């Protein structure tokens, strides 16, 4: 051992080349080693969720600058870099992502693009939202203006994804999520878009609530045009479903006895409530016009055209408003068709017969109450009666052969009287009309078939 001390006093000359080694080693190895450590540190951070990560290495000391999304994530990242072999010290330049209060996220759609704005909680959710926006709104540019922030409400991502789906149903508009409240505005692309969005919003995670849903939808339109020249009734626009479609088509057939119904209706969701009742009522009013247009737009019913005589115009203007379901607005623009030239009583008789061969005055079964669907026909009969003011007219009621003669006789008289009452109410002088009942004594067809019976049940107008 003593020898070792003695010899060591002579070891110093070797230190001179050793220093040369040292200088050369430091000169050549520093930068490659720093690069190696930087690469390993970045690899170690691959599992951590960080934003704006920057690593600088000086010697064996790593400076980590990044924004973390939680305190645990921050510490975890520091520990991960510290555990990299070769790293001597980690300089902590990390901080937490700023917290947004309130946490606002929005998606705005216009014709050309979808703009995602506000805050997203994590880089993954940010890219997921951009992806979802691309998927929901095909072929439209997606502009990502989202910043990262802490403080998102729980289940933010599920809510935002659901809202993005709704943005896909908009033509333009904006969806905003502020903490746990959702507000929507804009115009839906399709007729039923507003309803579809409202239904989808029910699936929001339960900690979210809808503060304002101001989505508008294109108006729900139903139109009918009565053309007396072509003798057609053209229906166009929308109906909610096939059942309502069939009901409306049937009502049109009943109310318009002389016109061919041209049905161009399409089925679509989004009808206002009470749509079917409103349209049926409005068609009844249209049927009384000589020519007219009915336009139902959402809850606004516009009816314009010519009534056959003053009384009818007044009835349509005044009466119909009350028959519409709640919430509907009736805007009649009814004028009166100029009175036709007076004619001889014989011509009148011809006109009556022609008209009654096309349509029949109907009553409720076994009763003397006029069916409202016959109003249009009665209006036409009144118009004819007005053209021959001097003629006296017998209104004759007939029944089929079913039932007792006495009852049939009474029923035919009452029905004839009901028609006369209607004519008088419309402003014709009582003195011109006589109501006569013939029971089943004057059949025009056999009473052994349903068709024959239906022909026998009739009202005739006879000029005397």
């Amino acid at each position, binding site marked *: 051992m003593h020898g*070792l001390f003695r010899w060591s006093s002579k070891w110093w000359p070797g230190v001179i080349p050793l220093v040369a080694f040292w200088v050369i080693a430091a000169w050549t190895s520093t930068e490659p080693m720093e690069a190696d450590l930087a690469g390993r540190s970045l690899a170690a951070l691959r599992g951590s969720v960080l934003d704006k990560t920057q690593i600088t290495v000086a010697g064996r000391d790593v400076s980590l600058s990044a924004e973390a999304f939680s305190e645990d994530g921050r510490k975890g990242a520091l520990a991960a870099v510290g555990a990299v072999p070769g790293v001597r010290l980690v300089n902590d330049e990390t901080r937490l992502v700023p917290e947004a209060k309130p946490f606002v996220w929005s998606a705005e759609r216009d014709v050309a693009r979808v703009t995602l704005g506000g805050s997203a909680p994590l880089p993954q959710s940010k890219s997921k939202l951009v992806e979802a926006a691309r998927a929901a709104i095909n072929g439209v540019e997606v502009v990502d203006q989202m910043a990262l922030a802490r403080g998102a409400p729980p289940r933010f991502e599920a809510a935002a994804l659901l809202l993005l789906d709704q943005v896909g149903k908009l033509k333009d508009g904006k969806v905003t999520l502020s903490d746990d409240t959702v507000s929507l505005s804009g115009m839906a692309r399709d007729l039923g878009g507003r309803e579809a969005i409202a239904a989808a919003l029910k699936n929001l995670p339960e900690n979210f609530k809808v503060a304002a849903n101001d989505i508008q939808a294109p108006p729900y339109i139903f139109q009918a045009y009565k053309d007396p020249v072509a003798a057609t009734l053209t229906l166009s626009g929308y109906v909610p479903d096939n059942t309502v479609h069939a009901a409306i088509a049937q009502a049109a057939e009943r109310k318009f006895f002389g016109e061919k119904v041209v049905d161009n209706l399409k089925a679509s969701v989004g009808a206002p409530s009470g749509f079917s009742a409103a349209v049926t009522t409005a068609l009844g009013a249209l049927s009384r016009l000589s020519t007219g247009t009915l336009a139902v737009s959402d809850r606004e019913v516009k009816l314009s055209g010519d009534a056959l005589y003053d009384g009818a115009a007044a009835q349509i203007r005044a009466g119909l408003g009350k028959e519409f379901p709640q919430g509907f607005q009736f805007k009649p623009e009814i004028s009166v068709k100029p009175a036709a030239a007076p004619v001889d009583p014989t011509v009148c008789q011809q006109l009556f017969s022609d008209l009654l061969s096309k349509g029949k005055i109907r009553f409720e079964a076994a009763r003397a109450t006029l069916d409202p669907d016959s109003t249009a026909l009665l209006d036409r009969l009144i118009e004819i009666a007005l053209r021959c003011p001097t003629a006296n007219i017998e209104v004759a009621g007939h029944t089929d052969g079913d039932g007792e003669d006495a009852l049939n006789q009474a029923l035919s008289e009452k029905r004839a009287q009901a028609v006369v009452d209607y004519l008088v109410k419309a402003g014709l002088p009582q003195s011109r009309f006589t109501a006569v009942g013939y029971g089943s004594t004057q059949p025009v067809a056999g009473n052994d078939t349903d068709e024959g019976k239906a022909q026998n049940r009739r009202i005739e107008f006879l000029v005397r």
Partner: protein
Amino acid sequence: MKMAYLVMFHWGWLLASLLLGLAMGWIAVVHRGPGVSKVTARWLALLVAVLIALAAAKIVPGRFGYWLDLGLILFGCYLVGCAIGSWLRDWVVTHPRPQPTA
């Protein structure tokens, strides 16, 4: 662990230092030139101790810290090489091979 990385990264230089030490130690046993005086040796030992303490405490920052570590580890290898070299030479000198008899 940390040392292992340095050794792996610089094994070539460390080996060179070790060989340098070995050679210097080999020569030192029979060298007749002036040695380092005891007082100087103590001061040098103190200097090295201070440098080791600085490195262990990781006080020197960045690249200088790294160069200090590198220098110390090279110096350590050199000393080990010297010790082995001197000891080997001493062993060879004190145990001469029996001369083959003519």
